[in-house]
């Protein structure tokens, strides 16, 4: 199969106006992916499916990713002249990246037995029902998985034939896979709590101030140190 750089160049020459970026993957898998722009996503998807050398006719998986607002710190060493001597000084720059939601598609070719080619689309911001173009018209297998992303992440796929919740009930308002999702507090009790579960469980314990450590310790120290 072609390299991702070659695919990127061919997309940009074949689909007029399309902008793509390579999102590098630093892990040992080295599965880099292509970030495609939302306006031309459908045309790019058609190209990837119908191009005779690519023939990516099988969309095996669609998933969502939630990225919160983050600050990326970069430290660069800069040579400056201090008191006539050349010195290396660290310069830290902060880059604020606003949050967004992402849909990731894994594409394979049944005809040519190659793949995967991974494409991504990003929303503008993390608003409720942030829009993305649906790729279900290109790959039917994306239908249920786009519904699942709509259900759990709240991305609205424009052009989807039947966009409703698939796992949660229709009356449900939240998007549980988002990182800022707050679970309903139907916790009540837990036989063996630990870590954050313990912190949650403690809110439901009956308060017993007379057994809270502080008073006990002071009264004990009074007994332990008798008047001289």
């Amino acid at each position, binding site marked *: 199969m072609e390299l991702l750089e070659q695919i990127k160049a061919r997309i940009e020459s074949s689909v007029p106006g399309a902008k793509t970026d390579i999102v590098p993957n630093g892990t040992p898998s080295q599965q880099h992916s292509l970030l495609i722009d939302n306006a031309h996503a459908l045309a790019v998807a058609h190209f990837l499916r119908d191009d005779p050398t690519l023939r990516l006719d099988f969309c095996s998986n669609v998933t969502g990713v939630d990225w919160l607002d983050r600050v990326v710190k970069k430290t660069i060493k800069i040579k400056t002249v201090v008191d006539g001597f050349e010195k290396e000084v660290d310069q830290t720059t902060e880059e604020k990246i606003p949050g967004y939601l992402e849909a990731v598609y894994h594409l394979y070719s049944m005809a040519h037995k190659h793949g995967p080619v991974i494409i991504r689309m990003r929303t503008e911001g993390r608003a409720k029902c942030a829009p993305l173009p649906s790729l279900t018209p290109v790959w039917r297998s994306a239908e249920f998985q786009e519904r699942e992303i709509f259900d759990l992440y709240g991305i609205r796929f424009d052009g989807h034939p039947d966009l409703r919740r698939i796992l949660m009930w229709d009356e*449900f308002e*939240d998007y549980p896979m988002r990182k800022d999702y707050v679970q309903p507090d139907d916790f009540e009790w837990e036989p063996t709590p630990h870590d954050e579960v313990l912190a949650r469980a403690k809110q439901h314990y009956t308060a*017993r101030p007379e057994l809270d450590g502080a008073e006990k310790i002071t009264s004990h120290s009074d007994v332990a140190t008798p008047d001289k």
Partner: protein
Amino acid sequence: MSEIDEKLRTELQRQGIWVTSMQELYNWGRKNSIWPLQFGLACCAIEMIATAASRYDIARFGGEVFRPSPRQADLMIVAGTVTKKMAPQIVRLYNQMADPKYVIAMGACAISGGPFKQGYNVLKGIDRYIPVDVYIPGCPPRPEALLHAFMELQRKIDGQKLTGTDKAEFLKPEQLSEFPVPKFGEHDLEPPANRDVFQPPKLERV
């Protein structure tokens, strides 16, 4: 029932006279023909099917007639994970069953939410909405455990009284046999638990 002296009864039996009471006969019949409701929710249902099949053979205890209608069933085996989306249907099925009716909560999920207890989409135990007679721990419980629960239930039925102040709950007209079906809310089921049925154990701060 006025208690018969056991010695007298065995003596009479030796003479070919069998003495019994209405309650004993009635409970004997009920406990040996418990018809479960035929439905499964998750992997525990596979164990329930194994219990019904020839190797474990729940028919030995009179429970082989799995009914596909709640109107004909005596026992609801909640076999598996009860998601919040499924919970109203479970309660509705329970409401549709005729008295006397019994519930076995089978497996970790059905009794407490199990490995999914910390999640947002699984009910933390079916006992939040309907009363449970026998709890079986396990993930999933083996067929022997289900048979044990079945025998415990038979023991319970055997001990139920037909008359008197301590008669069985289902014979008391004021006793509820239907429970409110939870509604799908915007964030959770409403209410998250039926307080008439379920009170969480109080934990003391340590």
